[in-house]
C-alpha cells in the first residue's frame, strides 16, 4: 500500500474478504475478495451503486453479517484481533465500545419508546467505560460539539420530538460515546434535505477530526464522499474497481467505470429559445390556494408550463411541491384558483374531468415499486391506457406495446410478459414512463422520478425523458429536491418554500445571482465534487 498514512499505525485490515448471500436455497458470492487497509484517524470512503456490497463490507469491519449472509473467506484484523476467529463475547465487547455504527435512517434506528439520553448512556454504562452520571455529562458535551440546539436538555426528549437532521447528529454523538477507534457511517445523510445534510456533514467531520477517529464512510453520493474521505475505494458488484486518495481519485480516475461515475453530473439540457409571449401555455396554475382540513398547504401559487418545456419545482420536503401536483391532477380540489389546460378551465375534481382531459395529463411516480401493480404483467400495465383511451385492440394493441417498449429501450420480446418484480429499479421506472406515454399525453408530471435511483441509472432516465420530450413535444413538470437534476433537465425553475413560490424564472437566471436568500441557501448547499468545497463554504457562511 502506498497511500499517505502520516506514519500512523494500521487499525483495520481486510484481506481477500469473501461474503456469500443466501437466496433460493443456494449460497452465491456477493463480495469477491476485497482488500482494505485503514490507519488510525483516517477516513475511507466506500462508494458504488446499490448492490455493490458497500454496506456488507462496512458491516464486516465489525465482524458482522446480515441475516442470510456469511463470511466465506479472507481475514479481518482489527487492531491485532482476528475478528474471524474471535468469540462472540470478544466481538460483542468490541462493538459499541471500539467500533461503532451509524445507520442510514436514524429515525428507524432509535427506539421510539426511550429518551435520547437513555439510549446514549446504554453503551458506555454497559461496557463499563463510565458511570451513568459521567455519561450524561459527556452526552451534553458531545451534543454541544455536534451543534445540536439546547444541548443541556435535548437528551431528555423522545426521538419523535426532534427533527431528522438532529436525530442523525444525536446518533453520531451516540456512536462517539465510548470514543471508539472506528466508526462506520452507512449513508448517514441520504435521507436528509440538502440544507440539513450540510449541517450533519460538518458536524460529523468536525467530531471525527477532534477525536482522531478512523471512519469508513459509505455513500453513493460522490460529492459527499469528496468532502468526507481521505481516501476513496470504488466498488462494483462486490469487486474493487480502484482505490486512491481523494484528490487524485477526483482529478485523475483510472478505470472507465469510475470515469463514468464522475461524468454522471455532466448531462445538461440544451438552452431552449424563449417562448413566444402570445403562446397559450399547456398548463397554467392560477392563484391556487389549497390544503388538507383547515390548514392551507399552498398559498397563491402561480406558474405556467409551455409545450416542449420542463418546469422544475424545487424545495425541501414539506414545501408543497407534491401538493401542487395533486391539485393539477385533480386529486385535491383547491380552495381558490383554477387550473387551465390549453387555455380552458379544468374541473377541479378528477372525477368530473372527461376521459380526454384525464388522458392529456399523466403522472410518473417517485417509487416505481408502489406505482406499478405487482400482479399485472407489463403487457397489461402499459397496454391498459392505450386500450382505454385510444381503443386499441388485439394486434394493434400488441404492436403499440412493443413500440412503447422500444421507445423506453427495453427489448419487447424479453420484457412484454414480465411481472414488475422481475425488473430492476431503473427498468421499473422506465415502465412507469411507458405507461404515461401510452396515453399520448401533452403534459407529464414527474414526481421525484430519479431520487430513488442510483446516479448512473438516474442519468439514463433523465436522458430518456429528454429524448421523449423532443420526440413528442411534451411539457414536463419536474418535482425534485435535487438541484443537480434541475441543472440537467430544467428550462424553468420554480422555488417553493412553506407553500409559497419564492422565486421563478428561466434556469439560466436562477443559477445566476442575485438570489432570494432561500434560493441562495439551497443552491450553495448542493455538494460539489471539489474536496475543499465544504471547508470553503463553512468559512464563507461563518464570516458572512
Amino acid at each position: 500500500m502506498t497511500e499517505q498514512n502520516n506514519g500512523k499505525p494500521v487499525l483495520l485490515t481486510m484481506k481477500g474478504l469473501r461474503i456469500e448471500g443466501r437466496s433460493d436455497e443456494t449460497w452465491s458470492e456477493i463480495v469477491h475478495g476485497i482488500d482494505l487497509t485503514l490507519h488510525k484517524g483516517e477516513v475511507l470512503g466506500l462508494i458504488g451503486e446499490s448492490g455493490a456490497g458497500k454496506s456488507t463490507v462496512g458491516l464486516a469491519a465489525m465482524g458482522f453479517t446480515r441475516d442470510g449472509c456469511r463470511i466465506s473467506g479472507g481475514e479481518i484484523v482489527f487492531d491485532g484481533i482476528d475478528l474471524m476467529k474471535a468469540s462472540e463475547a470478544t466481538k460483542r465487547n468490541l462493538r459499541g465500545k471500539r467500533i461503532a455504527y451509524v445507520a442510514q435512517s436514524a429515525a428507524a434506528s432509535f427506539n421510539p419508546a426511550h429518551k435520547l439520553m437513555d439510549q446514549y448512556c446504554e453503551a458506555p454504562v454497559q461496557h463499563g467505560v463510565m458511570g451513568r452520571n459521567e455519561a450524561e455529562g459527556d452526552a451534553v458535551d458531545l451534543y454541544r460539539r455536534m451543534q445540536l440546539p439546547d444541548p443541556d436538555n435535548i437528551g431528555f426528549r423522545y426521538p419523535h420530538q426532534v427533527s431528522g437532521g438532529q436525530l442523525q447528529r444525536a446518533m453520531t454523538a451516540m456512536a462517539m460515546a465510548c470514543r471508539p477507534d472506528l466508526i462506520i457511517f452507512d449513508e448517514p445523510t441520504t435521507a436528509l434535505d440538502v440544507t440539513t445534510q450540510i449541517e450533519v456533514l460538518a458536524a460529523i467531520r468536525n467530531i471525527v477530526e477532534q477525536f482522531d477517529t478512523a471512519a469508513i464512510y459509505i455513500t453513493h453520493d460522490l460529492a459527499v464522499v469528496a468532502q468526507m474521505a481521505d481516501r476513496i475505494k470504488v466498488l462494483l458488484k462486490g469487486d474493487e474497481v480502484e482505490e486512491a486518495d481523494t484528490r487524485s481519485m477526483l482529478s485523475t480516475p483510472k478505470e472507465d467505470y469510475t470515469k463514468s461515475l464522475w461524468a454522471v453530473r455532466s448531462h445538461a439540457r440544451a438552452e431552449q429559445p424563449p417562448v413566444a409571449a402570445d403562446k397559450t401555455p399547456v398548463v397554467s396554475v392560477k392563484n391556487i390556494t389549497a390544503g388538507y382540513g383547515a390548514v392551507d398547504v399552498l398559498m397563491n401559487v402561480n406558474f405556467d408550463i409551455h409545450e416542449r418545456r420542463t418546469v422544475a419545482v424545487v424545495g425541501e420536503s414539506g414545501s408543497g411541491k407534491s401538493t401542487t401536483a395533486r391539485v393539477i391532477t385533480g386529486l385535491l380540489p383547491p380552495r381558490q384558483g383554477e387550473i387551465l389546460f390549453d387555455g380552458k378551465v379544468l374541473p377541479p375534481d378528477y372525477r368530473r374531468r372527461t376521459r380526454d382531459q384525464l388522458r392529456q395529463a399523466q403522472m410518473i411516480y417517485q417509487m416505481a415499486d408502489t406505482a406499478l401493480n405487482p400482479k399485472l404483467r407489463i403487457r397489461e400495465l402499459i397496454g391498459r391506457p392505450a386500450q382505454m383511451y385510444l381503443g386499441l385492440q388485439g394486434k394493434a394493441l400488441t404492436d403499440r406495446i412493443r413500440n412503447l417498449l422500444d421507445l423506453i429501450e427495453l427489448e419487447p420480446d424479453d420484457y412484454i410478459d414480465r411481472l414488475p418484480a422481475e425488473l430492476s429499479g431503473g427498468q421499473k421506472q422506465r415502465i412507469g414512463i411507458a405507461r404515461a406515454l401510452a396515453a399520448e399525453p401533452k403534459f407529464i408530471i414527474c414526481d421525484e422520478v430519479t431520487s430513488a435511483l442510483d446516479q448512473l441509472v438516474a442519468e439514463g432516465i433523465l436522458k430518456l425523458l429528454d429524448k421523449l420530450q423532443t420526440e413528442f413535444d411534451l411539457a414536463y413538470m419536474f418535482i425534485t429536491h435535487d438541484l443537480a437534476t434541475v441543472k440537467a433537465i430544467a428550462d424553468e425553475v420554480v422555488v417553493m418554500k412553506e407553500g409559497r413560490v419564492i422565486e421563478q424564472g428561466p434556469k439560466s437566471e436562477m443559477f445566476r445571482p442575485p438570489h432570494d436568500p432561500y434560493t441562495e441557501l439551497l443552491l450553495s448547499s448542493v455538494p460539489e465534487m471539489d474536496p475543499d468545497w465544504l471547508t470553503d463554504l463553512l468559512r464563507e457562511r461563518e464570516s458572512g
Partner: protein
Amino acid sequence: MGFLTGLFWFVAVIAACMAAGWLFRTIAIAVTPKGVKKELRTAPLTASFGMMVIIIYIIVAVFAPLIAPFPERMVVGPEYMPWDETHLLGTDNLGRDMLSRLIFGARNTVGIAFATTALAFLIGSILGLLAATVGGWLDQALSRMVDVLMAIPALIFSLLLLTIFGTSVITLIIVIAVIDSTRVFRLARSVALNIVVMDYIEAAKLRGEGLWRLITREILPNAMAPLVAEFGLRFCFVFLAISALSFLGLGLQPPMADWGSMVKENATLIAFGDITPLLPAVAIALLTVSVNFVVDWQLHRASGLKE
C-alpha cells in the same frame, strides 16, 4: 408398556402419513404439467399429505354412489352390528350400514360446507372491497351493520335464525354464509385499505378506471393471498359449525347422512368402548388438519414472495 405401545403406534402412524405424502408428491410431480410441477416441488411433506387427503375426500364425495356398498338410507340389518365382512364398520342405531353413511356423509357435509364458504366469500369480499374502495358513508354503513351482526355469538345467532326460518339445506347454507361473511368482510376490508393507498391505485383512478375494474383488476389480485388463506380456515370453521348444528339437531335433517349427526345418533356406543361413533369425528378432524396444512404452505409461499 401400554404407554410405549401407544407411542410406537403414534410414531408409526405419523411416519406412514409422511410416507404417503412423499409418495403422493412424487407421483403428482411426475404427472402434472410444468408450471404446477415447480410449485409442487416446494410443498413440504405435511402439505403433500394434506393435498392427498383432500383429493381422496373429493373423489369419495363425487363418486359416493359407486364406492358405497349400500344405499345411504337403507336399513340393512339389526341395530349396532359389530364390524364384519359385509358391513365393514358395522351398522348404526337404525341398522343402516355405517361405512356407506360415512361415504355419503362426505358428500353432504363437505359439499354443503364448500357451498357455504364460497357464498360467504362472495358476499364478504365483494362488500369488503367495495367498502374500502368507495369509503365514506358506504363504508360506515356496511361496517356498522357488520359490527351489529358480529356482536351476537355466531352459534346462538344461527340457532335462532334456523329456528325462525326452518331447517332446509338452503336456509342452512344462507344463514351460515351470511354470519360468516361478516368475518370475511372485515378481513377483505382491512387488506384492501392497505392496497387502496398505493400509487398504482391512484394512477388507475386518475386514468379514469371504473369501480368494477378497479376492484377486480387492481385490488383483488393483490388481496388474493390473505383471502385464500382465510378461505381454507373459514372452510374448516363452517364445516365444524355445520357438524355442531347437526349434532344439536338443527343442521342437516335425518335421514340425510351427516358426520355431526352420526356422532350424536350413535353416541350410546361410546359407553361400551366401541370407537365406531367416533369415526365421523375422526373424518372431520382429518379434513380440518389437512386443509390447514395446505393453507400453511400457501401462506408461507405468499409471504416468502414478498421479501
